[in-house]
């Protein structure tokens, strides 16, 4: 029993990181039909930058706090330079474009930080053992911070005027523009949000899962799978999809074979695309978010 709980718990922590990445996919796709494959790179960039700052002597908290706006700026800058100039954006074009951005970012990270994986120091706290389940304080940080950030993003998209305006751009771009909402501005903000959740994911995860130049692609794919569970438009389902995927992976690794761990995500993706391409919970015509 404690084995099962152990697997579920450490799967939840990993899943929360997937969930944040999934949130980044949805944050953009719910505003404009862009699949941003560079989503995982924000996490790698944040982790590596923070490690450099800490190595240079900056204390952990300021390092983490400084890195988040930096990554947000990178995300926005990428949107300005590579996404905004495209007049007729289609999902396919966005995939090709962001795959290119992802590859470029990886190459830059490899040049700056070299090929070796490293981890941030763990956030303060003590590891505990509860009912036979060993819990690392960092895992609690991951779950806590993901919950707060996830709730904040969901609230911002569903309950603030800005969030509603941004979603309006996706549903009725022309009408949105007629009533004074700028789709260009909305896309830029959406990329900022994606950069933010990506950075948080990279920072909270780095002490346990490490950061390296090539870590973003795999993470991004897992996040993408979690996001497809919500048809790429539901923030809540994306978050829970991440948790579900993390736990499922760990159970498969524990009870069947660790070799199948990475196959889980793609089996889930196949199933979703074959059975319910519109996502698990939405009807095809349902409102976005």
């Amino acid at each position, binding site marked *: 029993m404690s084995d099962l709980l152990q697997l579920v718990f450490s799967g939840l922590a990993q899943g929360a990181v997937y969930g944040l990445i999934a949130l980044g996919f949805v944050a953009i796709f719910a505003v404009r039909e862009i699949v941003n494959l560079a989503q995982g790179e924000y996490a790698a960039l944040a982790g590596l930058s923070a490690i450099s700052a800490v190595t240079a002597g900056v204390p952990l908290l300021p390092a983490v706090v400084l890195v988040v706006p930096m990554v947000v700026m990178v995300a926005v800058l990428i949107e300005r330079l590579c996404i905004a100039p495209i007049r007729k954006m289609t999902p396919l074009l966005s995939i090709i474009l962001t795959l290119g951005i992802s590859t470029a970012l990886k190459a830059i990270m490899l040049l700056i930080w070299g*090929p*070796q994986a490293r981890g941030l120091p763990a956030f303060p706290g003590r590891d505990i053992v509860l009912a036979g389940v060993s819990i690392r304080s960092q895992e609690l940080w991951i779950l806590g911070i993901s919950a707060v950030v996830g709730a904040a993003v969901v609230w911002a998209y569903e309950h603030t005027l800005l969030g509603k305006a941004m979603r309006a751009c996706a549903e009725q771009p022309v009408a949105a523009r007629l009533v004074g909402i700028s789709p260009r501005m909305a896309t830029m903000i959406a990329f900022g949000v994606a950069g933010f959740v990506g950075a948080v994911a990279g920072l909270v995860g780095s002490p346990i899962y490490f950061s390296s130049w090539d870590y973003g692609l795999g993470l991004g794919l897992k996040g993408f799978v979690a996001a497809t569970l919500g048809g790429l438009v539901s923030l809540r389902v994306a978050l829970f999809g991440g948790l579900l995927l993390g736990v499922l992976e760990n159970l498969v*690794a524990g009870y069947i074979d660790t*070799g199948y761990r990475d196959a889980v995500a793609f089996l889930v993706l196949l199933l979703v695309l074959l059975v319910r391409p519109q996502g698990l919970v939405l009807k095809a015509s349902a409102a976005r978010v």
Partner: protein
Amino acid sequence: MAVLALSGCAESVSPADKGGGGSTEGPIKIGAVLDITGAGASLGVPERQTLEMLAKQVNAAGGINGRQITLLIEDNQSTEDGAARAASKLLQTEKVSILLGASRTGPSLAMRPIAEQAKIPMISLAANEKIVHGSKWVFKSAQNDKVVIENIVDDMAAKGYHNIAIARDASGFGEGIPEMFTDVGKAAKINVVSVEKFAPDATLFTAQMVNVRKAKPDAVVIWGIPPAASLAQVAYRQLGIKAPVYQSHGIGNQVFLDTAGASANGLLASLGRMLVADQLPANDPQNKVVTQFIKDYKAAYGQSPSTFAGHAYDGFTIAVNALKQAGTDPNKLRDAIEGVSNWPGISGVFTMTPEDHSGLTKDALVMVTVDNGKWKLVPAAG
């Protein structure tokens, strides 16, 4: 990426044009294929640094019998197909006289048939015995897995451990390891009761360690390279497993100590003498070469070399010595490498024979533990 890979493979050169610089003038080309990026980066990077440093040294000292060395290093991105492609390029386009690499077993195995077909000697820097088993042209400078396992089994037998669990790398480096433990441990009544696998780029090890804990072993072996081996070590400590843990010779670098942190304290690993060079007796045959190498490496890169840097040193130096002695004729060069006898290198004292192309016995290894981020020599058990 797939397209690139395909076109790369199709680029084969006609068989009549068999590689190998048999020429007797001009620079001597030495090719190396290393795991510089990807899962093997913690091995490939120090190996590249070592090769570059040594090539500079040899050239500054007048080269090999007056001929300068041209060192060509290729990154295989820690993949088998990357290694095969890079080896073909070095042998067929660049026509290197000798091939070094790869850093890990899988890519080395992928290079083996290419070197054999070109009839050019190759010195792998990886561990698994399969790389050289029965080969005429392929040698290697890292200790055989089997030798490491013999060393670990001796230690287990002396301490009376019988049931062991193994968490192994799922790639070539860990392939066949549990079987070898069963085989070597038979006399000491050592049984492998549980085997878990992890991908070399895995990040989460709870599942494997939960299963290891469930098996209730007397001792646990983690067989991998950092960062995976470090993450496994951390997860092992996190789950509060009391059984002692043995790590392989795959962890002999600072990266392991940095990434495993305090969880590395008290582990046992079977490693070459270089990591504990400062604790070696003065009359140790390797003392002089190891001390000099550490000094040079520190001067060049500001940090201590890893055991992998040592594998590169041994591979490169064996190659250079053989080139000095036999020139670049592939057959003579091969014979010269096979003739290496009682040569003190970084990983041990090498003696190659036609049957043994790795040249090291378990005497090349010592038991090492970690104490607060430092390697410590453990006196032999029993």
